[in-house]
């Protein structure tokens, strides 16, 4: 069988170096297969996070030849094998070891987003009615497998480290899924503007390009949310109405 070289970033807490491994490749193999073979035969303690190996759980995110991708969905026959294939951990999160990063920030961010709050049920038996065409928009956002590749590629997080003031594309998609849910009654627009930094996104669409679920993150989730925020807080006519509207507290 032909062989290929895999140049893997190895080390702990940000300190590390490239290490080359040569292993056999066969038809249909994906990058994660090569990593597993290396782990089984050459480096038993190689740290790699993975689960389903079918593109459904979003665990094996890494940067392959510099591109944020799922290792389990990147076939070797789509890569040039006459030169080393580089595999390194995501850059937007603290490094743990080898290919593993600490993605716990994402879980903290999600907790701060106001949860789903449905309207009262439509029918006496406690159920709701929704049309298929009305749920499809939200179903696109709910395809997200939380691989955090969109967070990794986003320059606001990756280069400018605005983790304290910007929630990133993943959680803008999550918020869009709640805001556009036909049953939801919660208002998250003030949070988006004040606490979650939606204004930082300048629509470079890098997140959309790397999404393995092909969610149209920027066009379908972020831009409509930006428009809602603008309508709520910056629309001059709405502002005029607010000025003349008697305030409840006075």
């Amino acid at each position, binding site marked *: 069988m032909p062989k290929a070289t895999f140049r893997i970033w190895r080390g702990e807490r940000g300190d590390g170096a490239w290490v080359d491994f040569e292993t056999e490749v066969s038809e249909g*193999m994906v990058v994660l297969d090569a990593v597993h073979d290396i782990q089984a035969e050459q480096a038993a303690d190689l740290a790699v996070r993975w689960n389903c190996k079918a593109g459904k759980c979003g665990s094996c995110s890494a940067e392959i030849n510099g591109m944020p991708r799922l290792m389990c969905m990147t076939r070797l026959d789509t890569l040039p094998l006459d030169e080393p294939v580089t595999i390194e951990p995501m850059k937007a999160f603290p490094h743990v070891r080898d290919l593993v990063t600490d993605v716990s920030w994402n879980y903290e961010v999600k907790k701060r987003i106001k949860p789903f709050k449905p309207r009262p049920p439509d029918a006496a038996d406690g159920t709701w009615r929704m049309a298929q065409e009305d749920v499809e928009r939200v179903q696109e956002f709910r395809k997200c497998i939380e691989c955090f590749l969109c967070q990794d590629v986003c320059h606001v997080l990756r280069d400018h480290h605005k983790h304290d003031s910007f929630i990133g594309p993943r959680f803008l998609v999550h918020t869009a899924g709640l805001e556009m849910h036909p049953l939801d009654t919660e208002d998250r627009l003030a949070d988006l503007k004040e606490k979650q930094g939606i204004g930082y996104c300048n629509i470079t669409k890098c997140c959309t390009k790397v999404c393995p679920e092909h969610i149209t993150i920027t066009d379908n989730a972020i831009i409509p949310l930006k428009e809602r925020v603008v309508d709520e807080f910056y629309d001059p006519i709405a502002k005029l109405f607010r000025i003349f509207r008697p305030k409840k507290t006075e």
Partner: protein
Amino acid sequence: MDRYTTHEHDVLVIGAGGAGLRAAIEASAADVNVGLVCKSLLGKAHTVMAEGGVAAALANVDDRDNWRVHFSDTMRGGQYLNNWRMAELHAREAPDRVRELEAWGAVMDRTKDGKILQRNFGGHKYPRLAHVGDRTGLEMIRTLQDHGIHRGITVHMEATVFRLLKDGDRVVGAFGYDREHGRFLLYRAKAVVLATGGIGRAYSVTSNSWEYTGDGHGLAYDAGADLVDMEFVQFHPTGMVWPPSVRGILVTEGVRGEGGILKNKDGRRFMFDDIPDLYKDQTADTPEEGWRYVTGDKDARRPPELLTRDHVARCIVREVKAGRGSPHGGVFLDIAWIREKIRDSEAHIRKKLPSMYHQFKELAGVDITTQPMEVGPTTHYVMGGIRVDGDTQMSTVPGLFAAGECAAGLHGANRLGGNSLSDLLVFGKRAGEHAAAWAKDHDAGTVGEDQATDAMRACLAPLERDGNGENPHALQRHLQTMMQDHVGIVRNERDMTHAVEQLADFRARAAVVAAPGSRQYNGGWHTCLDLPNLLTVSEAVARSALDRTESRGAHFREDHPAKDPSLAGHNTVVRRASDGTMEVSRLPIPALREDLKAIIAEMG
């Protein structure tokens, strides 16, 4: 000796798939302190892989459906070895559990009048599976996760439990380690719920991810609990077979529910060749009738592709063995053919089966809207598991509860597709509720220091061998191959006796397994610590399968190919004997309640 960090909870839930999350949510609703341990990151558990749907007799698509039909279908599918109380509770409560998901934000596909849509699946008499395309599991786990994170549950991510801790007969905690740093953790809890899923990693061809090493089964067994029905391992008929690296990945039954047909290399629709007596009256006579069924004709009967999974898997094995298989050792599953029946079939397939389209396109280079898929059986699910009380989900060990795949009873000898997601919800809730009640009635108990010291010593041993010992990855691969070859879909006494002998050797090798490197995120070390559980479940499957000298449901013996009526009245139990060996016994099934007997008689 090393140190450990102690966490105290009223209820500790081990496993954060559908059952664990649902249990944790329910326990937290009872106002007790809940800890949730997951082996990987939250939301990545195997539930995420469930594709087809969640079975519940909502009767949104066919108003003839109700819990009694669902109960009867589940019992028939399980060849009447089911814990009938669980089958009853499951059928009665599943609709409420599904509706509850919607109240928590799930967005399932809709009927024309705006209700939750339901689809056909093998062994279900009426369209019963609520779904979201073919990614229902993702929708379910994300809904539970997003609801659960606002309930005050403490989540311990990437932590593995190595051993349960006891105070006398009672379970009062667990000992484990965090994967990231390799630090030891001691959880004290008044009640423990196991929701660790399955055992698929005991086999080489499996749809299960690395986590499914039978942890809950092994932990419970070591703590003295009974395991039951372990001979029943479900081989899902349709896993991918090519390319080699994706062999075993699941191809949803939803493909057949949407009209997909199975063909051999000669183009013959071989499923019509062998229809079991139990299902003759419910199965279509012609391909035409089968098509009418999948397109909603209420007078039509189901096509033979939608017979139960055990039967479909065996038919595929038969075709392959007879030399009528596909080029890579499977058969053909064809959904593209529906272009003969409906306009714009390609868009329809992409809409109904989006992740199957994606999976084949990207991993196999096959466009399922125009080409057939190559599929073959894959180890998918274990019907057997921890023996529990049907109402409370408590095991035979006080304070230890179990729910979901690691618990047994609901599915008997064979599980119907879609009954797993509903199982997780119904019995996850029940386990959480009763574990919380138990925690309120009991004190924390005491954990002897020696238990922690002993567990730490066992955990550290593979690292201390400093690389001089068996390679854990190689050992696991050998074990998987051995189980696949000797205790797989088609079984016989000679092979399985050999397997039991081999397992003794594997145990000896696992005792000297070695992991080089540090304790930080060391996959080799983690594999070393998973091996004891894998060996326990492998032995339990082999010994139980040897004891059942007949073929029933998912358990097929070529040396005993028929059902034996004298073996229809018991479940096989394994437990640890006082000398540490595995003891097999037969547990009579309690007589079916009269009203339930009447339902089964009525449904025919």
